[in-house]
């Protein structure tokens, strides 16, 4: 299909970025270039993916395509033309009608940034008022059509809701509907699925694919997730340090990557069919403006030659595939399997953390409830039985709202369990954190998803590390400083980082500081809540490797939350699949991923994206999260394709196959035959 489309795309570009160079004046008053000599075209109806690590200029380029410039920026060279018109020469009035009209934008976190105080109808009417000629009387009709177009159930009822009454996926759909209000010819999407969980992400991507077919829109799809880009785009531009370093069809870029950077990025992605940790890409992209000569990637490139840092790399065209590298076409791709990092597991049989019949509820019985004898709603999390041995990693997986974080909050003592037992060896973890002894607090530490939020922006790295050292060991200033430097070296950071503020560190460095802080207490158990999902793939691989190495050195135990199943497979020994606060399946990673599957585990595995244009995730059901878990029977009954009448009445029993335990009424063999054979466990490069 892409052959024909690529053919006619080259004839009449709709959007033409020509030798575009964009600069801004930095704090030292120097004009530095964020985008350098970017040339690419988007044809009508075509989907172009922009990928690269954060800070490489993807969003800047995407916004420039609607002539949005951040303050202080200026066009240094080149043009961007939309239907032959130079966007930067347009009058403000024209530009305004173009934006949101013929060119639509779905910004980062669009769903979360809907106005919280306005109902959905008001938000859609606002978009219609600005970007369509429809008379007021037809707005409601059109709003309903738009909501149908984005496949939202019961659109009329949806109009009356507030954003917070919708799930994350539904909010994202509303954001898409608002962008469609102006009937755009070109839709620019900036990380539209980042932060959504696997199943929701698969649904949104599917929606975008069908919308593009139905409406014939062109799309520019920005993402750091190559799996998501592979689903949407026909062509992919890989960006590095403000340059397009590789541009070609998605088959060419993803399956025969030529530039060393593209290859390194692809290798760093953990995959379900690979064993062990993916190799990481060392170092960081150069600072804006620091490279003026030679190939920007030379500092990190394994193939760098003397010529690379002396002369700018030319953009070589290899059979319709552009690559900016001196050695383009000469580099052979090594077998990627050989690069996989394997670390031996050192777990013991000594149980460290035990959860028995744990029940957690956010509901607090109020006076009115007691008087009216209202029954308490079904507990958010119930019947959790888990055992974690010393030195092991247990991963909790499930979509958002499945209670993963809630279980962590109970273990850390922030939201104590209502019923059941949580123990760390002999010690009672049912106590709220305030009542735990200092030694017990020290032994359980936590690492958070987003280091931007978990590090105090006003504390230097030293002050951040000093706090636990003072709290748990009462060290004085000098001793703290020595110990803090030691902790930094543990996470492979040099001691000069001690006096920096978090704002002066990159995402990966910040997460390393957060890891160092957690090791300051010399813990036994570390709770990791989505610790890599806010990081670039290249950094993610390095952080995962660091965590694994620290586990070997220190013998710590991890309870790991992640929504990326490939990450879980790479790092965990045991995995527990949660749905609506109930465990569906639990067991050793190898058996859970390759052995028998619970129907929900299968749904999750089917929705996994791969950086492969031929890979098709299978999605089923809808992405509306349920408000409450069912009161009786199987937690998964409402969405299970195999549900039977008894599933609604009786709690299913555990079925065991070796270490793999599945909670379902169906026999394991019946499950295996009823769910179609696994499609996803297949060799990517076959």
């Amino acid at each position, binding site marked *: 299909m892409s052959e024909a489309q690529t053919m006619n795309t080259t004839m009449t570009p709709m959007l033409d970025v020509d030798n575009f160079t964009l600069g801004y004046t930095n*704090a030292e008053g120097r004009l530095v270039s964020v985008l350098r000599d970017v040339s690419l075209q988007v044809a009508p109806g075509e989907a172009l993916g922009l990928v690269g690590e954060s800070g490489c200029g993807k969003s800047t380029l995407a916004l420039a395509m609607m002539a949005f410039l951040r303050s202080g920026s200026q066009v240094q060279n080149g043009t961007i033309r939309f239907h032959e018109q130079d966007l930067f020469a347009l009058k403000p009035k024209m530009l305004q009608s173009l934006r949101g009209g013929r060119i639509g934008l779905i910004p980062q976190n669009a769903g979360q940034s809907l106005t919280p105080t306005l109902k959905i109808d008001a938000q859609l009417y606002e978009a219609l008022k600005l970007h369509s000629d429809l008379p007021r009387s037809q707005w409601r009709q059109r709003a309903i059509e738009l909501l149908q177009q984005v496949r939202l159930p019961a659109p009329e009822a949806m109009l009356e809701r507030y954003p917070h009454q919708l799930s994350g996926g539904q909010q994202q759909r509303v954001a898409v509907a608002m962008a469609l209000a102006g009937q755009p010819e070109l839709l620019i999407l900036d990380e539209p699925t980042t932060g959504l969980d696997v199943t929701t992400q698969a649904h949104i991507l599917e929606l975008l694919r069908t919308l593009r077919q139905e409406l014939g829109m062109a799309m520019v799809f920005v993402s750091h997730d190559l799996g998501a880009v592979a689903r949407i785009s026909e062509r992919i531009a890989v960006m590095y340090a403000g340059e397009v370093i590789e541009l070609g069809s998605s088959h060419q870029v993803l399956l025969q990557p030529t530039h060393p950077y593209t290859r390194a990025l692809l290798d760093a992605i953990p995959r379900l069919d690979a064993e062990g940790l993916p190799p*990481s890409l*060392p*170092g*960081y992209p150069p*600072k804006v403006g*620091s490279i003026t000569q030679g190939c920007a990637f030379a*500092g990190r490139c394994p193939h760098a030659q003397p010529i690379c840092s002396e002369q700018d790399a030319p953009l070589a065209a290899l059979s319709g595939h552009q690559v900016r590298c001196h050695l383009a076409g000469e580099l052979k791709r090594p077998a990627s399997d050989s690069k996989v990092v394997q670390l031996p597991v050192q777990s013991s049989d000594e149980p460290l953390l035990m959860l028995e019949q744990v029940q957690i509820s956010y509901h607090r019985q109020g006076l009115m409830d007691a008087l009216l004898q209202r029954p308490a709603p079904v507990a958010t999390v119930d019947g959790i039985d888990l055992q974690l041995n010393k030195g092991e990693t247990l991963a909790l997986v499930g979509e958002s709202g499945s209670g993963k974080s809630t279980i962590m909050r109970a273990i*850390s*003592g*922030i939201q104590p369990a209502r019923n059941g037992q949580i123990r760390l060896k002999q010690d009672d973890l049912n106590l709220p*954190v*305030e009542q*735990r002894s*200092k030694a017990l*607090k*020290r032994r*359980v*530490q*936590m690492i*958070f*998803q*987003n280091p931007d*939020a*978990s*590090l*105090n*922006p*006003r*504390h230097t790295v030293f002050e951040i590390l000093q*706090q*636990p050292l003072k*709290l748990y060991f009462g060290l004085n200033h000098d001793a703290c400083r020595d110990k803090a430097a030691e902790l930094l070296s543990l996470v*492979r*950071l*040099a001691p*000069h980082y001690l*006096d920096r*503020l978090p704002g*002066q560190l*990159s995402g990966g*460095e910040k997460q390393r500081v957060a890891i160092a*802080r957690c090791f300051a*207490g010399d813990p036994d158990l570390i709770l990791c809540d989505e610790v890599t999902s806010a990081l670039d793939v290249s950094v993610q691989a*390095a952080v995962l490797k660091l965590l694994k*190495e620290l586990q070997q050195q220190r013998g710590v135990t991890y309870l790991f939350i992640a929504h990326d199943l490939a990450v879980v497979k790479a790092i965990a020994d045991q995995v527990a699949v949660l749905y609506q606060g109930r465990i569906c399946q639990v067991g050793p990673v190898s058996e859970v991923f390759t052995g028998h599957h619970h129907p929900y585990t299968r749904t999750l595995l089917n929705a996994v994206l791969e950086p492969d244009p031929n890979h098709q995730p299978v999605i089923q059901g809808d992405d509306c999260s349920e408000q409450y878990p069912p009161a009786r029977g199987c937690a998964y009954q409402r969405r299970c394709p195999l549900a039977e009448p008894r599933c609604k009445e009786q709690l299913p029993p555990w079925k065991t196959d070796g270490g793999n335990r599945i909670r379902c009424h169906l026999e394991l063999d019946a499950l295996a035959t009823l769910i179609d054979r696994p499609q996803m466990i297949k060799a990517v490069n076959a």
Partner: protein
Amino acid sequence: MTAITMDMNTPVTKPASRWRQVWSNLRRSPSGMIGLSVLIFHLLLALLAPWLAPHDWTLQNGYQILQAPSEAFWFGTDHMGRDLLSRTMMGGREAITVTMLGTLLAVSWGGLVGMTLGFVGGRTDAWLMRVIDALLAIPWLLFLLLVIALVGQQTWTLVLTLGFFFGIAVVRVVRGATLEYVPRDFVLAARTRGESRLTIVVRELLPNVLDALLVEAAMRWAWMLLAFSSLSFLGFGVVPPTPDWGLMIADSRGMISIAPWAVIFPALALSTLIISINLTADALAKAIGLDRAKAPV
């Protein structure tokens, strides 16, 4: 173990500290620089007035009452023949001392309570905020007069009462600023680490709301100066014969048509001080990146 060398090739230029950044922003604001210069001039003058004053500020001279400004008495004299220049120079000392201490008190208790309420949240916060709102609705000047009439007008009573009343508004602002940081993970991280509430408020939250607190302090100070001078004007502030702007204006207001200078100079001194504080506070808020228009109250 593989070492990952990170960031080794980029030279470590230590970026300017935050406060130096704020200072360089502040320097770019002309109104802020004017305000700050006038403010510093006022403070220095008040500090050095006893040595700089050309005449004895309490010496009455029956032969020289209500003299117009002249070479000998630059600002003229009052109805008791006292040199107005010396009195104006001295007249800010008490006001500035009392209001500075009062502001310090207001910001300390208001800030601590505001941060704690924001951090604790829940019902305690909801109820105490209602109390704060009720207190804010009290006509504070009347109440202040009542308190001072009851306990007397010693310096420390003035500091305490002014500090208390002006702290109420600070609670509101600081609580609002705190609420932005409480849901952040670094607060949760401190809680899971097992830090005490006081440590969380002082170590984690204070550095983040310090900006808002500083700007608030400057604004409260300006208002408190006005309040203190009003009290003096009404006879509840400084006890004569200590010179004070409010008192001087009150004493001379009957003679404004025959001796306008006796009112104008102390009024000018008071208003330039208040305006300079306001200009500085505004510029500071902008330099820090806080927008006062957005702040509650």
